[in-house]
């Protein structure tokens, strides 16, 4: 069986998460062994430890949008998607 093609997503971090990570955006190549989902993105970031593990720990309120639409943990992500991570919104 052939390996599935690599999935590379563009990550965007907003508000408190941007400050905590010291990073506004980056490209991330996801591990090829599992189907790419919002959860595999979060797992890859948590594995970096430090602020990543702390801010994205289970139970922390983190919202995820894929291509500008709100997404859930099991939602698929595809090559070229824009995946944004941010805290609950506080506008108005």
């Amino acid at each position, binding site marked *: 069986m052939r390996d599935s093609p690599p999935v590379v997503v563009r990550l*965007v971090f907003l508000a408190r998460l941007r400050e905590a990570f010291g990073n506004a955006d980056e490209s991330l190549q996801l591990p090829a062994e599992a189907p790419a989902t919002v959860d595999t993105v979060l797992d890859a970031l948590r594995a970096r430890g430090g602020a990543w593990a702390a801010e994205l720990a289970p139970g922390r309120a983190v919202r995820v*949008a894929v291509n500008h639409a709100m997404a859930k943990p099991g939602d698929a992500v595809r090559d070229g998607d824009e995946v944004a991570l941010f*805290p609950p*919104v506080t506008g108005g």
Partner: protein
Amino acid sequence: MSVRIQEADFDVGAEIAALRHGDARVGAVAVFVGTVRDVNDGGAVATMTLEHYPGMTEKSLQAIVDEARQRFDVHGIRVVHRVGELAPTDQIVLVAVTSAHRGEAFDACRFVMDYLKTRAPFWKKERTPEGSRWVEARESDDTAAERWER
């Protein structure tokens, strides 16, 4: 444009006039204006910075306006939300709705604000004498939005 995000202040009278634009079907105009307070969660607020997610925020506001148009019998809806640095007494957000009668205008205006507070990607950071802090989301805002789900 029914939805705008801008750094500049807005003129409530001019926005209402543009929304009504001689529409003789309109018998009611409901307007909500959110402004910056000088105290939040017991702390003094010197200034506030509002951040958004360009691209998604516009789509999100437009989706809320579209849903309000589906739910309520209204003629026009206008949303203006400011970003950047703001100070106490500054205007933050305007929601204006026109309809034939007041009930639909009031309801649609409140619906748009309740959804905006919980769904539109904006974040507030307050500068206080003790330093800067990101504003935490309020459970009461979720409760307000959930009322419309019933």
